[in-house]
Structures are given as C-alpha cells and as structure tokens.
C-alpha cells in the first residue's frame, strides 16, 4: 500500500451551502494518513470530527478541495459511486452501534452483503468466521435486542469487517462502554491494525487518546486542524 492512504488537500465542508442556516464545518483541512496506521481525531463537541470522518468514510464528498481515499479521488462524485467506493473500502463502527434490534446477530452482520448479490450460504460462512474471531458465535441467531452492550459492540465490529475493508472508522466508539469493555475494544482495534488495516477513531476519551496503540492524535478545533 502507498504511504498516504488517506490524503486530504484543502478540504472544506459547508452544510446547507447558500442557505441562511449555512454552517462551515471544515475549513482547509490538509491531512495525510499512512496505510496501516492508527490515528485518533480529537476535539471539542461541534469541532467537526464527525464531519471529517464522514468525508474520509465516503459518506459525502467535500464541498471543495481534494480527498483521495484508498487511491480514489473523491472530489464531487455522485452519491451512487461514493457508496460503491464506501462499501469496498470502509468499515464503520458507530457510537450507538446502529444495529437493527429486530434482526438476528447474523442478519445484522451480513446486511452489507445483501445488495452485493452474495448468496445466503456465502454470507453465513463469512459471518461465522468473524463471529468466531470476536467470540460471539454462540449469539448468532439471537435477536440483537437480547444481547449485552459489549456483544453489541462486537456485532458492530463484525458488520464493519464483513466486506474486509482496508480502512476501519469508529466515531466515539467507547462513549457507551465501561472501562473494561473500552480496553477490550482497543485490543480488537490493535489486532486489526496488526492484520493490516488502517484505523481512524474519533474520541475525547483519554483511555483512547492515551492508549499505546494510537500512533497519532489529530486535534481539531473549529473545523481546522490545530497544530500545537
């Protein structure tokens, strides 16, 4: 992999451009993240962490500037192609897990594979390998609403990894976890990094920001990268 796996050049994001409720969330961001690294975006609430993570995660394109994610330049690209790039390269882990409570654990994990036309057998096979790795195999057929927070977190990780993406993004992953579970989460992230993935987290939890596995902290303040 190239050294600059994620490269942002003069990236700006303005929500509701041209409207009275226009918000300038990111301003002239220049950032390079190397492949196979683990970085953490840190900043106060409303500083633009989630927005930056969304651009890296190909959720929406930047308003201006150039973003190159896993070898693909994403300046103003239709939603359809962003989605295609996103599902091939990004695994998302959310603060509130975003697991569908009425589906089983297995169904939740294999959800990203449905529109790819992967048959039920192959879906199950892939999911079982991940569930084994994350030791939630015994929960496979439980409805997601019936399992504990820690297990839910691991279901979310399994879902993020089901398509074997090179980049894993996590937005405030430990905000709803206690100390032990947070440490366990960071261990899993470290394992993933060892397996060759690039990990990008956002957090203001010192447990993460001061975790030995985190190689680099990127401080964000009012939509700009803060250089101390």
């Amino acid at each position, binding site marked *: 992999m190239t050294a600059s796996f994620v490269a942002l050049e003069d990236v700006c994001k303005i929500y509701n451009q041209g409207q009275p409720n226009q918000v300038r969330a990111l301003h002239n961001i220049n950032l390079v993240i190397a492949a196979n690294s683990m970085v953490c975006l840190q900043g106060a609430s409303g500083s633009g962490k989630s927005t930056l993570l969304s651009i890296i995660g190909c959720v929406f394109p930047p308003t201006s500037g150039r973003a190159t994610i896993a070898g693909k330049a994403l300046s103003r690209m239709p939603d359809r192609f962003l*989605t*295609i790039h*996103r599902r091939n390269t990004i695994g998302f882990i959310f603060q509130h897990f975003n697991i*569908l409570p009425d*589906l089983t654990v297995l169904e939740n994990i294999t959800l990203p594979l449905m529109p790819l036309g*992967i048959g039920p057998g192959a879906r199950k096979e892939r999911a079982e390998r991940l569930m084994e790795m994350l030791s939630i195999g015994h929960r496979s057929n439980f409805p997601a609403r019936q399992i504990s927070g820690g297990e839910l977190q691991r279901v979310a990780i399994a879902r993020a990894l089901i398509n074997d993406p090179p980049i894993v993004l996590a937005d405030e992953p430990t905000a709803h976890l206690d100390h032990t579970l947070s440490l366990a989460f960071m261990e899993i992230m470290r394992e993933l990094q060892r397996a060759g993935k690039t990990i990008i987290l956002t957090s203001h939890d010192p447990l993460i920001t001061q975790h030995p596995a985190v190689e680099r902290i990127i401080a964000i303040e009012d939509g700009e990268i803060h250089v101390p």
Partner: protein
Amino acid sequence: MMSFARQANIIDYSLSSLWRRRFKSLGVMVVFAGVIFLLASFQMTTKALTNAASDILAFAPEITIQKMKAGRQESIPLEYKEKLAVILGIRAITPRIWGYYFNETSGANYTVLGLDPFSMPLGDQLGEAIDTGALPLDHEAVLGQGVFAELAGGGDAVIFSLFRPDLSLKTFSRAGVFKAETNILTYDTLFMNLDDARDLFSLPADMATDLCVTVANPNEVQTIAKKIAALLPDTRVVTRQQIQKTYQGVFGWRSGFASICLLTALAAFIIFAWDKASGLTPEERKEISILKIIGWQTSDVLTLRFWEGVTVSTVSFVVGYTLAYVHVSFFEASLFRPVLLGWSVLHPALRLVPSVELGETLLILCLTVVPYLAATIIPAWRAAIIPADSALN
C-alpha cells in the same frame, strides 16, 4: 447473474421486513384485499351473467321479424312467409307468439311463449331445457321455475287455468318445468303450443306476434336480414347477434356504473395506502439510514420497497380474488344481486358460474394493483433518499 442474486437477496430482506412490521402491513393488506374482493366479485358477477345470457340466446332464432305500426309492434300475418319465399338461403320460417300474461292474484307478469316445436329447426333441443324432456302437446304447457312456484305452489298440481282477455278460463296441464340452469331466461316463462297461445290471447288464426327465420349459412345472416327488411318495409328485423349485443351493452353499462362506485372505494384505499407508505416511523427512518451507510444504494432501497409493494399486492390479490370467487359461486354474489338483476328479463335464483380468465384477471389487476403500486412510488422514493449521514448523529 449478479443482479439476479441481488434481487433475490433484496426480496429475501423485503419479506423479512414485512414480517417484522406485520401489523402495519396487515392493515394495508386487509383493506386492499377488501377492495379487490369488491371489484373482482362485481366483475365476475357481470361476466357470469353475460355468459349465461349469451349461452341461452344461442338458442334464439337467427332472425326475428316483427310487424310495426306507428312505431309499435303488432301482430304479423302468416302470409308474410310467402313473400319471403324468393329469398335464397332461408332454411325455415317459424311463427311464434311472444306475449305477456298478467296474473292479477300475484301481480306477476308471465312471459308466454307459443311455438310449434315440431316444425321448428332445433326444436327438439328445446326439450333439453325441460326436466321431463317433453315438449308441450295440445292443452299442455311447460312452466318456468317462478311460474311453477306460483301456479302449482311448488307442489305437484298438474292442472291449472289462465284467463282469456274476455275472462273466460283456459285450462292447461303441466308437461314439464324448465330446468333451473335456464332460470335467467325461463324463470317467468310459460311455454305452450302455438294454437293454445293464440287461443289464450284470442289472436286470429292466421296471425302470430313474430316470425322466426332460420338461415342455412350463418355467414349470410346479415345479408338475408337486409333482404327481408327491403321486402317487408313495415317490419323490424332483428338478428340474434344484435340482441346479444344489446344485452351486453346493458350489462356493460350497469357494471361500468357500479365500477365507478367501486373506483371511489379504490380511490379511498389509494389515499390510505399513500398515507401509510408516507408515514415513516423514526425506527424505519433509522433503519434506512443504517442500510445506506453500510453500503445500500438509493436504488437498492427503492427495489426493496418495490418488492414490498409487490408482495402486499400479491397476497391481497390472491386473498381478495379467491374470496370473490367463493362469494360469486357459492354465495351467489349476494352483495351485488340488487344492483345487477334490476331489469325485467332477469330474475334471481340462478346459479352463477364465474370463469377465471387471463383477461378478467389482468383487468382486475390493472384496476387495483397498478394504482396501488403507482401511489407508493413517491413515498418509497422519499424513504430511499434519507441521507446516509443521518445514521451518524
């Protein structure tokens, strides 16, 4: 093919998602099945009635000649038969008496049909419509089910009397009763010999009410009818096909009118369906935003909604259509009887045999499923464009 597997997966998901929201889906399906039931029963009833009428009309003469005076029908002299001898292609001309007899005691109007069945082509086939198979001889009559019920009280009375215009009594014995399958035309009929009918109505001996013409080659009916009309300018010439079309016209009109009422019900349902499809719960919005951020396309969500619509329609259609079939064939369309059987020739107490044909099915499908699917497109699209980043907040 990849896109085929994709469709299969999305169908799979749409079924499970409908099942998870089964109470919401069930509401729509029940109402939809109800609307389909109403429309389909109605269509089946009209279709069955039309079929019944045309089956029986097939026995009617190919051409009927009636004498007209001052725009009204009057008796036709039998000598008109001779005038038609010049026309080639006529197989037979049979005089017929077709009149109405008013029964003062019950207030009912009977249709009296006087024919000489033995001189009439296919006359022997008439016997198939009669339970005893016997055609009426002198002083005998065959009764329709309704007439039989009134005159013989449904019992086994054999002798009964009717009044001539001068109030003298004419006595008949019962030769048989028309079978119930032919009720649609024979329910109120009294079928007797030509001479007895003439006697009952006090018609002169050389008169009938109309002349029935049988034609050798069915393709020549129109031509011969034209020739007859030219030869006998004071008559009205009616072909069997025209009678059949008039029946259909009246039926079609009635069913169309009722369809409009039913379409109102359909419109109400469409608004209901639109409303149901638009009202997304926060959970549903959340679900879609999650699907989208983990890699589902807007078009995938649209496809999902399409299959949900198809599933709802299919289930409702099968249920509604089956119930309609049961309603029409086993409960004799009891809901629509009053609307459809309003005109004089038709009477109740007939067994309807609905036919399930491709065309009829497609017709009901177009009237119900198409508007439903069309009404759900925009709500489905509104759901599908929920942005992926709303899952982040």
